[in-house]
């Protein structure tokens, strides 16, 4: 229970960084932290006490795998989510570089002021 709550705390900190900070790179860092907390939460939900990785080794019985393995489904979904996060991060950073090239700053409030 405590671990679940700590991942929620991590999520809230990322959300705070996303909402309250003015620097765009800080906002991106907030999104990255939110991603980490969600991935950690999904893997924690699928963990089994004394669990082994869901891989059949040589000399291991099929029954042993079914009884002791951790949940393979969230692992497969999180694996795709991590790589998607990398692609989306690259897209966000390229938008930031374009903004920096145009306005010479990363500060959101200055960019807003320069617009009008």
């Amino acid at each position, binding site marked *: *229970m405590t*671990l*679940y*709550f*700590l*991942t*929620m*705390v*991590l999520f*809230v*900190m990322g*959300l*705070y960084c996303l909402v*309250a*900070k003015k*620097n765009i*790179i*800080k906002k*991106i*860092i907030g999104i*990255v*932290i939110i991603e*980490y907390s969600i991935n*950690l939460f999904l*893997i924690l*939900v699928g*963990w*089994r*006490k004394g*669990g*082994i*990785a*869901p*891989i*059949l080794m040589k000399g291991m019985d*099929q029954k042993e*795998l079914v009884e002791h*393995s*951790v949940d*393979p*489904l969230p*692992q*497969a*979904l*999180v*694996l*795709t989510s*991590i*790589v*998607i*996060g*990398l*692609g989306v*991060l*690259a*897209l966000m*950073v*390229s938008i930031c570089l*374009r903004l920096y090239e145009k306005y010479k700053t*990363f500060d959101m409030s200055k960019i807003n002021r320069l617009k009008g």
Partner: protein
Amino acid sequence: METYLLVLTVFMIIGSVIAIETKNLLSSVISVGVVGFSLGIIFLMLGAPDIAITQVVVEILILVILIRATISTDNTAIEKHRDNLPIVASLIFFGLFLLFSYFAVHDLPVFGEPVMKVASRYLETGVRETGATNIVTAVLLDFRAYDTIGEATVLFVSIVGAFVILRRQGRKGRGEKDVEKVGILEDEDIKKNFEGF
């Protein structure tokens, strides 16, 4: 086991506090690296070696990309004036969020005893039906391949978006070729423009 996990999670929270509150952008990016690598260790302890490998390597790439964004630019985040009202409102919202999530996590299955309704079927029939001994790969590429093809599409679209955003700007002149404008480097371009590097 749970003690180690608690220590590592608290370490992640400390790292993210430093990443959020530091003024220097390069330091905060490196603190994000701390968070990501301890996340990789946690994945390894939770019996997920596939994700641990991917997380560690992806974390290196995230550091490379973020450092490229901060290294050649103005890398201090000094905020002279703060808007107090949005921060106070968001803090109240986050307090309520944490309160409700504290009640909500009690309805989840107990830590260490997952439900595994669908997954037990995958574990029973996975090796026999697909022939792959790594059940995660069997789920990823056989049982749930639709998810994977969606993931490939999202990655493709985001990469194309980054290419389009970072191409050379400006309208095309009359005598210029198309090739220069969409960001593909010709051999002559490399010779012409990178002689100094």
